[in-house]
């Protein structure tokens, strides 16, 4: 059974425990309480993690292909801004439609125009930002999130925040896709060797486009939830999610060059990143120090993974 849990997931999980223990020692000494292991705190963190988790889930599909999507930051913002601007019943479809459109553009750019994803999605990100500034005049959007968006992000009819449930549903769907459907298998195959996959008679362009669409739609959905959570859309609301999402995927053991990685790793990676950020801020570490530690943790974890399996290519 040990073989069914992969190494990165195990390492990242142990690291989560270490972070919590270290944080608890700190709070016991300085404040006399054990905030970090209280269920209320952990549930609150899970709720925050859901936003990052959904972005990371989509990002993982693209990273598995050996590509990357740098446009998620403003896909999040664009989806949220347009959804709140339209409002009413159309808010959610419009937001997801933004994701679909961005995903198609990214996918076509990478699959047909063969522009490296890093450059193409960076360009798309800039275009989206420009469009949103044009739309809002650069001011904070005035429209509020719809009731449904707020409910989706913060309602808790089942005792757990809906955002966490949304994350769970998305996760289940992606795990199913990755492990049980041909499309999932093709994603890994393209990430390992696109030429061999193409010559095996597989429509690799469709795989690329499909994965970019999944990524952008996940980001768009996260945008809707974040807008619901803060009851507004705001400028640059997605910027804080781009690097953490990539970090969560990579810390979770997905090979940044594509082809390898398990979805469970991405979940653990997301939780690790969120807890790390939270513990550092509760410990009143100055911003500069937080950045240093945050970056070091990611580098150290990648070094640890690198010691493991080396696959000849």
């Amino acid at each position, binding site marked *: 059974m040990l073989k069914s849990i992969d190494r990165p997931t195990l390492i990242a999980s142990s690291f989560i425990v270490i972070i919590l223990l270290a944080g608890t020692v700190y709070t016991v000494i300085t404040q006399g309480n054990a905030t970090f292991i209280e269920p209320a705190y952990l549930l609150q963190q899970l709720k925050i993690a859901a936003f990052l988790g959904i972005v990371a889930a989509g990002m993982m599909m693209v990273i598995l292909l050996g590509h990357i999507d740098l446009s998620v930051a403003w896909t999040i913002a664009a989806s949220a801004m347009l959804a709140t601007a339209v409002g009413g019943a159309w808010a959610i479809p419009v937001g997801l439609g933004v994701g679909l459109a961005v995903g198609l553009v990214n996918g076509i750019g990478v699959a047909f125009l063969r522009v490296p994803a890093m450059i193409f999605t960076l360009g798309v990100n800039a275009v989206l930002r420009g469009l949103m500034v044009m739309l809002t005049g650069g001011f904070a959007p005035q429209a509020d999130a719809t009731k449904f968006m707020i409910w989706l992000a913060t309602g808790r009819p089942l005792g757990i925040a809906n955002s966490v449930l949304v994350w769970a549903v998305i996760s289940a769907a992606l795990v199913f896709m990755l492990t049980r459907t*041909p499309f999932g*298998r093709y994603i*890994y195959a393209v990430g390992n060797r696109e030429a*061999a996959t193409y010559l*095996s*008679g*597989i429509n690799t362009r469709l795989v690329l486009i499909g994965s970019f669409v999944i990524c952008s739609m996940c980001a768009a959905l996260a945008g809707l939830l974040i807008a619901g959570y803060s009851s507004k859309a705001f400028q640059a609301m997605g910027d804080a999610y781009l690097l953490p999402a990539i970090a969560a995927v990579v810390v979770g053991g997905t090979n940044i060059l594509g*082809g390898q990685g398990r979805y469970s790793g991405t979940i653990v990676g997301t939780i690790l990143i969120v807890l790390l950020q939270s513990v550092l801020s509760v410990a009143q570490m100055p911003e500069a120090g937080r950045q240093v530690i945050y970056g070091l943790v990611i580098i150290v974890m990648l070094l640890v993974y690198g010691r493991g399996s080396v696959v000849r*290519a």
Partner: protein
Amino acid sequence: MHSLTQAPFLSLAGISKRYGGVRALANVDFACQRGSIHAVLGENGAGKSTLIKIISGVVQPDEGTITLDGHAVTFPNPQAANAAGIVCIFQELSLMPDLSVADNIGITSPPRRFGLIDRRAQRRRAEELLARVGCEDINPLMRVRQLPLSRRQMVEIAKALGRNPKLLVLDEATSALTAADVDKVYAILHGLRDAGLSLLYISHRMHEIDALADTCSVFRNGQHIDTFAKGARTEEQIVQMMIGREWRNVYPPKPVRNERPAPALELRDIGWEDRLSGISLTVGRGEIVGLGGLDGQGQRELLLALFGVLRGVSGEIRINGERRRISSPAEAKHEAVGMALIPEDRKTEGLMLPMSVRDNISIAALGSMTHGIVVDRARESARIEEIAAKLKIKFGNIGDAVATLSGGNQQKVVIAKWLLTGARIVLLNDPTRGIDVGTKQEIYQLLRDLADSGTAILFYSTDYDELIGCCDRVLILYDGRIVRELEGADITEANIVASSLNLSLDAAKAPHA
């Protein structure tokens, strides 16, 4: 001239190496002399590559000692072996495609001036070395990417010579050479031998070993079976030592036909850019048609054009009499066409190396093994097991990375992948390159079995023996055109060679008359 009693230049004693649970070498004693070309023979997985890697410092032995020129040595890394004068030319080319030929040749120790690379000296040196291997026609400023595979291999040899080897190891270093280059390489290697170098030579081509080696060693299953002077054993004995079983006729018998079978694949006037023109041919059901000729006359392009990889192919393709447009491998694979391509380079075009044997075998046929949108795992496993058993693919665990398999077994995985799709037209692009004799024989038998069950096979090979032994008909390409069709008893080496050079057949017969 060089007796075996003379103190060897390099000797290994009691060398063992394991990779995980696999024993790659077991207690091997091995020696090689100065001024001698020493061939190392064995099937894939016999331990030849591990032997070479140990000698060149790429891996370290678990046990045993290495003695070089009378001194015990250890090579913790390839640089140490290099410094001791051991230089390798590996099967997988080690050139950087986007650097120039001169940059590649000088990569390990570029000539310097004031600490900077002296480009002019580097270019001169590259020119000298290229001249030494008889390739004055290669411009040292050209990028390696622009050279065909056979020229790259010559550059690789020039690069190795530039490092002043005392022991030169050639691992399948001639597998991509054209016939004309092979002669040049032979002359160079003989020259190096006469200058007192030790050469270790690994090849699967028996006639090369005949022409080249002074001493032969046979390996099997990680053990050193025997070492003998050239000519001391017959070819049959050697092959038997290598495969450890009875050696029968390599090529299965060809069927006798009175009339052409119904065509499965018909091409009319196929052209592509300036590489292919006016190609018309048919391949009947149950027929194996060979593509021959010198390397790079459009054979590869023809197979890629058929498989829908190339853009802008003109002409007409008919499958079972119906005209089809094939614009991608996906369309070629589609049931209505039922085509398969075993590509040239299995490592980059045939396989996803880090993925499992299972995933590699099922990838092409995955679409047909679903239940709704879900992969039917039970059916997938059953079909994989069946095909793996049929092709006798050897692997530890079906979930192991395909990279851990030997070359021959990797190629079988590529073939298995396509057989699962139920292809009725099979295109093969030099499928036996770098594969051991035992597996080659199995592949020949498999091709004939496929043909007997009605599959149409179009088979490009750089090995004339294969074309003669396997094919019902052979088409010779020259400069992108079919210049001759040989059938039955006309498929002879003399005819193929003459046609490849676009000579008339009489010219080929003349010397014998």
